[in-house]
């Protein structure tokens, strides 16, 4: 499968699969933030996290429950 296809699926380059106990999240201090291509909650259109880089960013991963 081509590299671009992997990107288009919105996958993250996490390396070998690991259980959640080993790696509860993909963020590593000192490393680039994972590339993100996901739907916007507002209208479902694709959004890139890259659009927000260039400023200091506070990123919240959460659920409303």
């Amino acid at each position, binding site marked *: *499968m081509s590299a*671009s*296809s*992997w*990107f*288009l*699926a*919105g*996958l*993250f380059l*996490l390396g070998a*699969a690991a*259980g*959640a*106990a080993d*790696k*509860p*999240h*993909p*963020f*590593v*201090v*000192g*490393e*680039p*933030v*994972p*590339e*993100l*291509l*996901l*739907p*916007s*909650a*507002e209208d*479902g259109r*694709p*959004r*890139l*996290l*890259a659009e*927000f*880089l*260039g*400023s*200091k*960013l*506070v*990123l*919240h*991963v*959460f*659920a*409303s*429950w």
Partner: protein
Amino acid sequence: MPGWHGATLQLETEGKIRTVGIIQEQHPDRARLFMQWKGMDWPIFVDALDLLEVAVVPITVFVDEHGIVRQVSPRPADLAGFVARDFAPAAASEDTANRLGLADLAALAVAVEARVPSGLEGRPDAEQAAAWKAHAQTLFLWGGADELDTAIEAFEKAVDLEPADGQARFQLGVAVRRRYDSPRRRAGDFQRAVDQWSRALGLDPNQYIWRRRIQQYGPRLAKPYPFYDWVERARAEIRTRGETPVELVAEPGAAEIASPAKSFENAKGLEEPDPGGRILRDERGFVSVEKTVVPGTVVAGGPARLHLVFRPNASIKAHWNNEAEDLEVWLEAPPGWEVDRPLIRVPNPPQPVSRETRIVEVEVRSPDSATGSVTLSAYALYYVCEDVKGTCLYRRQDIAVAVAVE
């Protein structure tokens, strides 16, 4: 998040930071309602498939202006230091060639149009499974409602090729549940979703996003907190402000609002409505009943929540007659089993006739000795009419619910 919102609002206004959210929910519109309620208007990405592979929430991350993670799970007090510090670009951040760009957005339509992943012939099963999974993710994220069936088929191919891929099973469950909440719903979708989530959790029991997905619809005895008990309060406060609440695609069900419980009510003194089975059976199928057991497999001695969904048969224009008895459901517990409330009544709405879906949720607890597949016997009694001025009848439908015990 509201605590952080207060800390970051002024900094956002001054242009010193930006805030972005990533939501991990089956129903992302509920997160939008939550944001509206709390007055938080920052951009949100929807990660219903948990592509980020987080196992817990919430997680807050500081990312510097070069895209480098500087702190994970900081405290609000750390914000001032983060804002004040000048970060040197790391070597990796200077290489932008491999980062996603806006050009990739144009290729999304091409990826969705591809009916199957290409170049898989002769490849190892694991590689084929990964390709099918990625293809399914693309279809789910970008194909819209029209591609949801194809996305589900692609996820199914992925789990057939790689049965131990918990992520693929979880995502298959997400897709099937989304279809359940849509007009394209198929019989059994909810149970299929629960079963896949249960199998995924069996493969990785430390994945708390997956665990919460089951608990959201599951029994009170196994629930950590009420998931969506805030929805009505949020709507009321939003309306008080003169705003219109975000509309939800799927209303939270009783399980999603219920508070945890440490014991069953074990309601006593309830009279079985038709002990002799004398009420005529609904042989014409005026009402269909869809049964879902959460979790998909019950641990011996553990609880389960049964979801019984009653739908009037649209093909014969069946509808509820609300001028007589309420819908009643009676559940007979097998020996050793407990039932929280054996008799449940769904009050009729005020209008004389209606055709809405009615949902009854009942909780049971298995004995420690339970094993294999156990059938719980229940029945429903209802007043139903055929067509607008057709015959109205009082009917009984016997319901057998198979519960798998491990």
